[in-house]
């Protein structure tokens, strides 16, 4: 069974991502965090396979959290899910070894993310 961590400061956004993921991967265990700092703690505690990460959150930037998480857990796959669709953000996401997916969260964007996780 795969374990996914959803990181987003918006509860609604986490609900939407969770619902879309559950629809296509009902067996996955889903954890949630509302900031980058909590995300780092949760990934340290264990066995997270995948992570969706928002960028603009209180505290550290999601891209910075993702970079540190991937350095400590290189087996993980992270999808940066952000409304900030500027080229600099997409380049930054790719440079740390994650993929960038534009918000809003839709069935289509979730299928890109799930394909990346499973591919």
């Amino acid at each position, binding site marked *: 069974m795969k374990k996914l961590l959803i990181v987003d*400061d*918006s*509860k*609604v*956004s986490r*609900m*939407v991502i969770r*619902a879309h993921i559950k629809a296509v991967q009902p067996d996955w265990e889903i954890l949630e965090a509302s900031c980058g700092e909590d995300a780092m703690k949760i990934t340290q505690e264990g066995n997270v396979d995948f992570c969706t990460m928002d960028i*603009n*959150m*209180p505290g550290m930037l999601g891209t910075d959290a993702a970079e540190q998480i991937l350095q400590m857990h290189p087996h993980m796959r992270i999808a940066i899910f*952000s*409304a*900030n*669709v*500027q*080229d*600099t953000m997409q380049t930054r996401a790719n440079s740390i070894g994650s993929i960038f997916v*534009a*918000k*809003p969260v839709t069935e289509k964007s979730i299928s890109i993310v799930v394909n990346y996780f499973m591919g």
Partner: protein
Amino acid sequence: MDSLSELQLDALTEVFNVGAGRAAASLSEIVGDEVKLSVPSVEIRKSSEIDNEVIGLGTDRFGAVHQTFKGAFEAEAILLFAEDHALEIVRDMMSSQISIEDLAEFEQEAMCELGNIILNACLSAMADMLNIPMDCSLPDYTVSTIDEIIQRINAGEVDAYLLLLHIDLVIEKRRSKGHLIFVLGSTSLVKLSVQIERFLGAI
């Protein structure tokens, strides 16, 4: 009804988050630089509660772009910048070679265009995510005091509800804070909350 639930405000914040992200991407292309976005926050206030402190821009003169939205609900959208920042943004948009003095003649048109980009980005995010088509009027730009802005807000409806979106759009080293205000009548606030409930119910 004078407010939205915490979850409804969260949903609305996320809608504006997507809108501001789209706006920042367009702005970034125009000024040729990264636009930094703060985490947005949304609050509902009565127009009688609004003063300089609530707006939080630390100035008493604003560059204000107005646009009217019509669709599932009606709202007047106002984008506020501190006046001195407004001219700096126009300079970023035009070319840094142009002096501030020469910029004055472009200010009107450039600020309308800027407002149009930001307000339409928010509008399109709202239309797409809540699935409610919206139309908007052409933008107009004025330099006003907060009192003049409040007078204009209250001209439409006594004690209207204001949906305040606080977001910082920072261009390069300039601390150009922009604030977005949606003015909704009480009927429109109810209609908006119905649309948000529909969105939440569909998750």
